[in-house]
């Protein structure tokens, strides 16, 4: 705690070699990254909420060119028992689960159980409104796509990609160790903490190169207007309903990424991490070690 406070005091000026404890603050995130990161936070929140709202208009997924209504790949449905009680039923292929309260059936605006795919706390707007969901979704889709494109351009032009994100040979050699570190919730210290670790790099690369472009393309592949020029893409993924299913799966990829990302931020010094994404300055845990110490630190965990 004392170290964190000391680091905070120092955040504005370049950092001299410290005495005890060896506080070390670096300029970690440049301004464009910080701005685009927070725009993206807003976009993802709106896109997921409004996307689930749109999904609720027909809470089923299919594979192929069209909807095979009798055999959906996924369905969040509702059944009524003899006492007129609603039960939420989630069907995945031929498997069926009772998900009353969350999926298929959940409390409506008046608190009574209602048939709806995703619950109102997860959709934007809360009450059923496909029209409003679409308005939110398509406005923020533009912001998301423009922000994401600018990010990709900036990332390559500024060498952020080659310098910070592209895995190096030594990153790959530390792959298994990094997995073990993550499982033990052990976070890098000193020099090592000034770089992204291999799993972190792979997660970011997955999101910016696969999830981002993928979800935009799958969204466009669902557009009947764009289909007149993107037919090849629609065919490539197996048809419009496949595109819709992939769009949905990637959305949950994003949700999974965000959950892990936020979890890692929470357990690795939430204030330091948040500050670095707001002001750019990051206090390196463990401070600066000389080469000898760094080698020694490498071999055992530091609390």
């Amino acid at each position, binding site marked *: 705690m004392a170290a964190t406070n000391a680091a905070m005091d120092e955040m504005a000026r370049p950092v001299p070699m410290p005495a005890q404890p060896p506080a070390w603050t670096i300029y970690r995130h440049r301004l464009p990254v910080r701005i685009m990161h927070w725009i993206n936070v807003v976009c993802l929140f709106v896109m997921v909420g409004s996307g689930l709202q*749109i999904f609720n208009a027909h809470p089923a997924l299919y594979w192929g060119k069209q909807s095979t209504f009798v055999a959906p790949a996924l369905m969040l449905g509702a059944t009524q028992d003899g006492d007129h009680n609603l039960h939420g039923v989630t069907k995945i292929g031929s498997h069926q689960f009772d998900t009353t309260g969350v999926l298929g059936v959940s409390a409506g605006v008046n608190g009574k159980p209602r048939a709806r795919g995703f619950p109102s706390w997860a959709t934007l707007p809360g009450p059923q409104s496909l029209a409003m969901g679409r308005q939110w979704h398509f406005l923020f889709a533009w912001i998301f796509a423009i922000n994401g494109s600018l990010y990709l351009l900036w990332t390559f032009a500024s060498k952020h990609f080659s310098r910070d994100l592209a895995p190096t040979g030594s990153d790959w050699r530390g792959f298994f160790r990094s997995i073990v570190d993550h499982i033990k919730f052990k976070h890098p210290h000193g020099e090592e903490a000034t770089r992204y670790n291999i799993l972190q790099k792979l997660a970011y690369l997955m999101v910016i190169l696969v999830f981002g472009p993928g979800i935009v393309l799958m969204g466009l592949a669902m557009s*009947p207007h764009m289909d007149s020029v993107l037919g090849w893409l629609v065919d490539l993924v197996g048809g419009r309903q496949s595109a*819709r299913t992939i769009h949905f799966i990637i959305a949950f990829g994003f949700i999974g990424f965000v959950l892990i990302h936020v979890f890692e931020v929470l357990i690795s010094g939430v204030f330091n991490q948040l500050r670095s994404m707001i002001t750019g300055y990051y206090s390196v845990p463990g401070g600066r070690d000389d080469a000898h110490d760094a080698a020694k630190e490498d071999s055992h965990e530091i609390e």
Partner: protein
Amino acid sequence: MKSNDRRLLNRRHFLARSVVGGSALLLAGCDKLAGTSWFSGLLGKAGPFTEAVQTAITPANALAREFTEADIAPTFRANGSVDPQDDDYLDHVDNNFADWKLEIRGLVERPYSLSLAELRALPSRTQITRHDCVEGWSCIGKWKGVPLRAVLERAGVKPQARFVVFRCMDTLDDNLYYESCRIVDAYHPQTILAYDLNDKPLPIANGAPLRVRLERKLGYKQAKYLSAIELVDSYAKIGSGNGGYWEDQGYDWYGGI
């Protein structure tokens, strides 16, 4: 150890609660925002902007994908009005649309009307296309009908006409259904006034006796139960002024995504 476990559990419970509660709070904030006039105006701009970009980067006559007989869905799903109870419509159903006529009117040189038999006698186009509902599902069907372009050219569209309005015979929630599109979409080679679905006269559920097919748009643009085609320079004075029944309920007029 035990108390640690409990603390962990409490913390987990707290986290789950926070996620749900936080999300609900943020969503409520979004609803507030959507209630302000400046933000709802901004939300409404996404549709026209998407239309401007999508039409700019696609050729006006690029064709929607056409499929094969093997792709035709066993039953073509119907949505919206599926069994209109309007008196006029029921009368037409009773005598098998023998007295039904499609009026072509508004900003045209020569208003006229066509019976179903006259429509069937005109040169036709048949296409197997995918119908994409705004709800998210898709269905492939085979449509046969008269290209709208031919019907409009015969009437002579006046230069000041900017939109084609489709007038319908079905009432939904006390309002007659209607739709509209641009002249360029009306002239698209696949835009037809369809009277057959899957080699049979259009069933009532799918819009008998005539519906429009705008193959690069969502289902709600494909007006069913047509009674008239009206050329206008603005749709501001029709319905609630948004260009269509569902548009008046907040759906985007573009309907291309």
